[in-house]
């Protein structure tokens, strides 16, 4: 087997998906496990302002799923932070301008929500693609520095 053939065999064995966005699951039957409908709506709106694209990456659904098994302390910390933001998107945006400043009394709440949104976004297929990921899993060599030691 040549080097090329075995790399191909790796890719086949790993069932690598084509690097094409599958898009938002549009099923309307999804219901949050942990969040209320109002909390979910607030999160979706806030998430889209913090990281545009987080809605199509279904960040809210992943957050809801993780929260459903999280410790009570972590659940309450998240809900407390979420409740600190208004429900209306325009008002949220105005508050984010202030809350994103380190000296703001709202900054801790902002950081909590942003952490959840960011972690779920950058671990989504959509987020990884924006970081340059193509799903490739095999290389012939390491990209070593070509300068001589």
């Amino acid at each position, binding site marked *: 087997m040549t080097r090329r053939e075995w790399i191909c065999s790796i890719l086949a064995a790993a069932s690598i998906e084509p690097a094409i966005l599958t898009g938002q699951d549009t099923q309307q039957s999804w219901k949050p496990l942990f969040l209320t409908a109002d909390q979910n709506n607030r999160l979706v709106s806030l998430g889209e302002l913090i990281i545009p694209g987080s809605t199509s990456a279904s960040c809210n659904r992943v957050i809801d799923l993780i929260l459903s098994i999280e410790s009570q302390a972590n659940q309450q910390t998240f809900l407390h932070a979420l409740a600190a933001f208004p429900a209306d998107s325009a008002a949220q945006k105005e508050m984010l301008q202030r809350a994103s400043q380190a000296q703001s009394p709202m900054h801790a709440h902002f950081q909590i929500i942003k952490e959840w949104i960011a972690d779920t976004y950058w671990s989504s297929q959509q987020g990884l693609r924006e970081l340059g990921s193509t799903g490739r*899993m095999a290389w012939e060599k390491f990209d070593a520095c070509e300068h001589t030691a």
Partner: protein
Amino acid sequence: MPVDNYDVVIVGSGASGGWAAKLLSESGLQVAVLDCGRPQRDANFTEHVPVYKLKYRNLKFREPVSAIIRQTRPVQGQCYACTEWNYEWFANDHDEPYTTAENMPYNYFGRLRVIGGRTNVWGRLCFRLSDLDFKAASHDGFGENWPIEYKDVAPYYDLVERYVGVTGMPEGQSVLPDGIYQPPMGFSCAELKFRETAKQRFGRIMTQGRSANLTLGINGRQPCHYCGPCERGCITHSYFNSSFTTMKDALATGKCKLIPNASAYRVLMNSSVNRANGILYVDRVTKQSNEIRARVVVLAASAMESTRILLNSANRQYPKGLANSSGVLGHYYTDSLKGGSAEGIVPDPPKQGSIDGPHRPNSIYVMRFRNIPGSPKMQSFLRGYGLQGSSGRGFNATAPGFGEAYKKAAIEPRERFTIQCYGEALPRFENYVELDPNVRDIYGIPVLRFHVAWGDNERNMIKDAAEQCGEMLEAAGVKNVKTNASLHLPGDANHDVGTARMGDDPKKSVLNKFNQTHDIKNLFVMDGACFNSSGCQNPTLTIMALAVRSTHYLLDELRKADI
């Protein structure tokens, strides 16, 4: 109920047990291997499963362990190698607990429950010990020398390295003897600059981490394809895992029977002739006790578990634990110190490459430079440390702000350089394990209680290491360097060794220089429990070399009918 009669029964199928099984069965002996793990197979490997395929995305929030793993493995999950991809390979901490002495926290990591043990998830770094390590007591007066020298082990290092396949660079340094290496993988530009700076400014040797990853195919195993997360398995078998190497060879002989899901309880004895004659174990599926009989018993269950079996095998003749006439069984626990680190940002990271890879599956390594011949003696600590780290491309998820401006800042590539100390902990009698008289696992087997704490020597070493890490990174042009002099808990390095140390004096040691118990001729302990001191090097290569050496000795003794 007695089952079968074997020439040798081996407990454990990992780094040492795999070698014993391979060599003994290839010599024609009938061998049985008991392992507490489930069968391992390629279909279990997840190194190519992307994170977005995981139900909970392997994410953790403000806790050391993710919510899903916390439910069953709150301790194992703290180990970097235990993730949502593979956590079911690890012991359930609730089912198989351990305890600690008051105010002596300990992390008992790396308790694998798949065939191959820790070699499924190990860090793969393969460093030889030197006579600076085997004769450490002669250098600084602390503890005992090993009963062996480098020249006694060197041929076995050669044998193991050839079979395992180790990528590395010979450097000609006596403090870290060279081995037999496959071609190296190379450095990033920042690492290469660090190597030059370490040598020119500090007189220190930075080399590629010598790791059990192939760059040339051997024995049907393919070269590394640089995907990165070896701890999740490898469908091309490019790293060393005993489940698809030594154990595979052993089973191919037709002479080796593997019994998975078997928790060894104690060694069975014929006390009238002072001979071990089998193992009592619990079938983890049926919870039934079984016995297996053999002419020779080899414990290779990992340092702590082999000692646990010996302690659980106490009888009238050996009331403090089997083969423990010395009274040192369980004592002289030692480990690698982990901590003492620095990190910073590499200016002008290269634009090529992507977050996908290629990922080199090993670190860089700065050889020990403290308390070595020709260097000034450190006043604040004995022994020394090596430094492990890497520079790697990433992104900036923690960039400030929100919205499109945040996204633009977050995806800006950046290269972070991190380096961390792995140091030698002093082997002290006071650091020990014993049986907890009040706690058993769900199989009814008494568990270990750890009495392990670091002392001033360890704290001072880590402080020095953090300072040196910072100075070296800054000298190499790394920016925003931050040092961290914190010392990880004992156990965090997954390098727990000792507790049945080898020695020439039966009053001071459990094993002789061939890993044979002083007290019982047909009972061997072939894993890291035999360590007299640990050096600062990762222990697995030495564990394997000593297991091979011990197995050759056992075969010689069997041929002479001397066992």
